[in-house]
Structure formats: C-alpha cells, structure tokens
C-alpha cells in the first residue's frame, strides 16, 4: 500500500471518530440502548472510511487539477463570453440533477399543496416541484456567472453578498410564509460534494491566472453566491407561483 494512501486513511479515521463517539455516548449513556444490527453498522463504517479516503485521494489527483486546468485554459483563451457560458452551464448542470434538491423540491410541493397554494393533484405537484428545481438551477447558474465576473473584474465580494442578504431580508417580508423555510434551506442544499471542489478549484485557478488578482481574496466566494441566490429566486417563485 502506498504511504500516501495510508496517511489519508489514518486522517479519514480521525475525521470520522467524533461521530462514533457522539453516537456511542448517546446510545449507551443517555438513551441506554444497545446498538442494533452491529455487524451492518461496522461494515457501513468501514465503507465510509474507505469511501472518504478514496474521495480525498481522487480530489488531489483529479478534481483539483481539472478545475485549475480549465481555469488556466479559459484565462489563456481570453474570451469572457465563453467563460461565462461555461460558468452558467456548470452551475445549472450540476444543480438541476442534484438529489438533495429533488428531495427538497418534492417536499416543498407537498407543503404548497397542503397550504392550498396549488391544487392537490399529482400533476400540479409535479409541475410545482419541477418549476422549483429549474428556478434553483437557474439561480445557481446565475450565481456562478456573477461570481466569475467578480473574479475577472476584481469587485470586492462583501458588497455583493451583503447586497444579496439585504435582498433576502426584504423579500422575506413579502414572500408567502410557507415558502420561507424552504427558501432558506434551499440555499444550503444546492452545493454538492462533487460541485464544491470543482468550483473552488475553478475560482482559485482563475484568480491565480489573472494578473492583479489574489487567489485568497478573489478566488473564494463562488460557493457563497451559489448559496445566496437560490433563497432570493425561490422566494420570488413563491410570490409568483
């Protein structure tokens, strides 16, 4: 076994240890219950350990270099419109199929049906859920475009984000009450385990290949946009729909 792999494996073990301690403490001390299906849980834990190790290994080998090489290639090409088109496709494409978002959208359709916002038919719900998914995917595509444009132009991140937060606050007072919880949550679920490393590497790569940009100050922030715009778009969807 190569030593790097072993090192990652040991690191993963310590990453996962706190969960085991918390679960053990609550199960034995607070709830005073035995662990059911111990064998399955042990095999599952082993899977989690192997999975995390492989994932981190692959991150360094595949996703980070890929994101960076794309960023460098676009910077060398020098075409802003292609870069922005790519940014939109990346945001929209990774979000529209995101399982967590599909789950939240279906849940939201049930809430809307119960709140009598839409009809209680199966078709009305499916349409509502699909509309919501497309809204969120559009908003993430839009967010990555704005975020990339910010890196290229060197705009300070805080004014955009704070402006966005103010937008969220203002819209909260006008949006229907039942959509607010879902809108707030949808900001958090859109950024998946696959998207985050790629988008982060893209941002940092862009900031390091454009003269006058600092990767630390300008490279981060894409994820922040991607978690902010869905809140605004979903509340708007609730107000229109």
């Amino acid at each position, binding site marked *: 076994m190569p030593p790097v792999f072993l090192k990652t494996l040991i690191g993963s073990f310590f*990453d996962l240890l706190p969960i085991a301690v918390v679960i053990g403490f609550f199960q034995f001390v607070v709830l005073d219950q035995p662990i059911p299906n111990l064998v399955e849980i042990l095999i599952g834990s082993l*899977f989690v350990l192997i999975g995390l190790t492989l994932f981190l290994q692959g991150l360094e080998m595949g996703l980070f270099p890929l994101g960076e090489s794309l960023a460098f290639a676009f910077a060398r090409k020098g075409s802003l419109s*292609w870069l922005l088109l790519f940014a939109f496709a990346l945001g929209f494409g990774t979000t529209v199929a995101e399982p967590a978002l599909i789950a939240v959208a279906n849940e939201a359709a049930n*809430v809307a049906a119960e709140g009598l916002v839409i009809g209680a038919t199966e078709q009305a719900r499916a349409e509502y859920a699909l509309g919501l998914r497309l809204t969120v995917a559009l908003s993430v595509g839009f967010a990555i475009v704005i975020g990339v444009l910010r890196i290229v132009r060197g705009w300070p991140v805080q004014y955009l984000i704070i402006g966005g937060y103010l937008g969220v606050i203002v819209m909260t007072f006008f949006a229907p*009450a039942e959509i607010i919880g879902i809108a707030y949550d949808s900001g*958090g679920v859109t950024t998946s*385990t*696959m998207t985050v490393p790629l988008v*982060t590497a893209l941002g940092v790569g862009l900031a390091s290949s454009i003269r006058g940009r600092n990767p630390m100050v300008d490279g981060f922030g894409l994820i922040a946009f991607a978690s902010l715009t869905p809140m605004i778009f979903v509340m708007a969807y609730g107000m229109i729909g």
Partner: protein
Amino acid sequence: MEQKLLETLWGTVADVLPITIIIIGFQALVIRRPIANLERVGFGFVYVLVGLAFFLQGLEMALFPLGKLMAQQLTAPDFLAGLHPAGEAVNELDWTRYRWVYVFALAIGFSTTIAEPSLLAVAMKAHQVSGGVIGVWGLRIAVAVGVAFGIALGSYRIITGTPLHWYIIVGYMIVLVQTIFAPRTIIPLAYDSGGVTTSTVTVPIVAALGLGLASTVPGRNPVFDGFGLIAFASVFPIITVLAYAQISAWWANKTQ
C-alpha cells in the same frame, strides 16, 4: 449488499454525468486542448466516484438509521417524560425539558461537520492558497463550532416556535458588522464556508432532528416548523470563521 452498492455507484455516476458532459464538451469544442496528465486525472475522477459511492452507501448502512432513530428517541414523549420524577407537574412547552436535544444537536452538528467531504476540500484548498497560514483543522473546527451552535439554536427555535426569519436576519446583521472589522483576506472564504457545511453527512440527520422535534413538541407543525435547521447551519459558520480570523489577528498583534 453488493446490489445496493452498485445502485449507489450508478446513482453517483448519474449524479456527475451532467458535469462530465459539460466539461468534456467545453474541453473538446471550446478549449480544444488535451488535458494535462489525462490518465492521472481520469484515475482521480474514478477514485472520487467510487469513493463517494462507498461513502454514501456506508452512511446509509451505519450512520443514517442510527442517527435518525436517536433523533426520534430523544424527542419522543416517553423519553422526555422519564426525565421528571413521577407526579411532578410538567409544563410541556418549557424549553429546558429538551436539554438532551440541545446537547445532541451541538454534538452531532460538530461531529458531522468535521466529517463533511466538501468542507475538507475547501479547507485543503485554503491551506494551500494561504501558504499554510490557514490551518486545515483550524478552519474545520471554526466551521464545526458554528454548525453546532446553529443547530442547537435552530432546535430552540423549533421548540419555542419563534419565527425563523428573525434569527436569520439577526445572524446576517452580525455577519455584516463582522465584515467591517474582519481581516480582508478571510471574508470570501468565510462566506463560502456557510454553503459548504451542509452537505452529504449533515443534512439527513439534521432534517430528521428537525422533523422529529416539530412532530413531538405540542403546537408545532412539521410542515412549517421542520424546515430551517439547514439555514441556521449555513449562517453561523460564517460568524465563527470571521471570529476565528479576528481572534487570530488580534492574538498576532498582541504577541508581536
């Protein structure tokens, strides 16, 4: 079990298919240059896929059933009744009755965040970009403390039934004030850490806790009160990461 693992693997492949098509499409049509170290990158991609499949399947087998069960048990009326001596008058809406829920929220929020792969990815990148100034563990612990506090406060909100948006708005106000005073270099990273924390590991358990609480506490409706924990877990890490940077800067100034 092999069947399930294959299903998860297939699900992961379907999940990353759009992104792969977009990248290959742009690479072939727009950039028109071969990827450097294609073989290594390809292997890395496969590692990520297989790793994610194992990770998700393992969570499904080990963590989720137990975590969800515990969230239900801790909020179950029987467990809560057992905390009081028999015959004592109990106010069902007294928020201190749910003390174990808060401890659980804190502990599970912290520990699942430490294990969150997206956060690890961002922490590794930040460590590299900052030239080692930002420690991988420092950032992760700062974020985990934020999530822990956020989820505990979110549980308190569900139990007391107070409106979600006031908490979030106050949270944003704190972020706003901190942004004015925090070191400039940390700001984008701090904003990012709000979005990356709530991912594969944290969301299912936290959602179970929220729904469990909203269906047990009298007068709460799971439909309206069960949501919102994720939002708490996305705002508070921003505050703690900014605070971490402020304290570090202050400490560096003081010891100079």
